[in-house]
């Protein structure tokens, strides 16, 4: 997978959290996902699909990170994951996908995003069933970890002409 397609999501995470929390998360080295290691206690998943590109992105948080983000955002302390925390996580992944979409649109790779789904369960794992590799980007916010996973597939036959068309148009 081209790094060009991962960056819009990384930038969107940084922008979203910086705007909403006033704190910029620290990005750690991305890895290609090999094992289904325990990811977190709450995850927001959103799919996206278009003519040329389709895939899914997931934001996974351990309980402590999710509660901290909620506290920073709303100013209220919650003892455990509840519907408000779920809403926050779902909304976060929605904003991230929306932010990335803008960048993809600019590249001429339009897609639509689906409705976010939030999964709650102690130490659940997420598997993306695409043929393309899954990129995991670990983040740290105030020394609390969370991660983003991206699985993205391009229709090779369709992507080429559209890119060439843009070059021709630009030239």
């Amino acid at each position: 997978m081209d790094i060009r397609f991962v960056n819009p999501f990384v930038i969107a995470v940084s922008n979203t959290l910086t705007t909403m929390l006033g704190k910029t998360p620290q990005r750690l080295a991305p890895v290609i996902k090999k094992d289904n290691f325990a990811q977190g206690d709450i995850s927001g998943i959103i799919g996206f699909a278009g003519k040329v590109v389709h895939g899914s992105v997931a934001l996974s948080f351990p309980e402590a990170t999710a509660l901290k983000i909620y506290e920073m955002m709303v100013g209220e302390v919650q003892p455990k994951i509840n519907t408000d925390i779920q809403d926050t996580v779902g909304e976060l992944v929605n904003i991230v996908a929306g932010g990335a979409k803008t960048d993809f649109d600019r590249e001429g790779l339009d897609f639509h995003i689906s409705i976010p789904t939030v999964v709650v369960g102690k130490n659940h794992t997420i598997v993306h069933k695409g043929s393309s590799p899954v990129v995991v980007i670990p983040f740290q916010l105030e020394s609390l970890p969370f991660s983003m996973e991206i699985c993205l597939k391009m229709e090779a036959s369709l992507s080429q002409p559209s890119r060439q068309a843009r070059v021709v148009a630009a030239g």
Partner: protein
Amino acid sequence: MDVKYINPFINALDHTMATMLGVAPERMTISVKSHNIALGDISAIIGFAGENVQGSIALSFPEKMALLLYRRIIGEVVTRINKDIEDIVGELANIVAGGAKTELENSRLFIHNAIPSVIVGKNHTIAHKGTTPFVLIPFQWETHYFTMEVSMKIESTGLLFKRALAARAT
């Protein structure tokens, strides 16, 4: 949410189960999900989106049912959820969404399917974060239960009309 948009998913599931597994699970009372109940041990979620529609579906299975599905398709006995089971569950969701896509096109709803994600975790819950309610469809096969959830948001035709007007104006 109109039932004519839910039926394609039910039909696709019935058809997939019949052709791949030779089973006809019985559909039970459809309900609108208002809270998150413990759903299953393994779930496949697939999002879809189009010009005027977006949504997601989830298929959730208890571990036992997932193992049985695998045995039915591959003919091999597996004692707990592993990579192969995840593949099968993800593929099932993919096929159901693909089947529904074809039928929705008859209702002039054109969607693209995203890549399915499979969640593994004892008794996890799933919440769809749309403004529309999501429909929970329980199925029973022999003594096993599994569920399909469909959440779908359709932009009003008014908006499309406005868009068409705007296009004409330019």
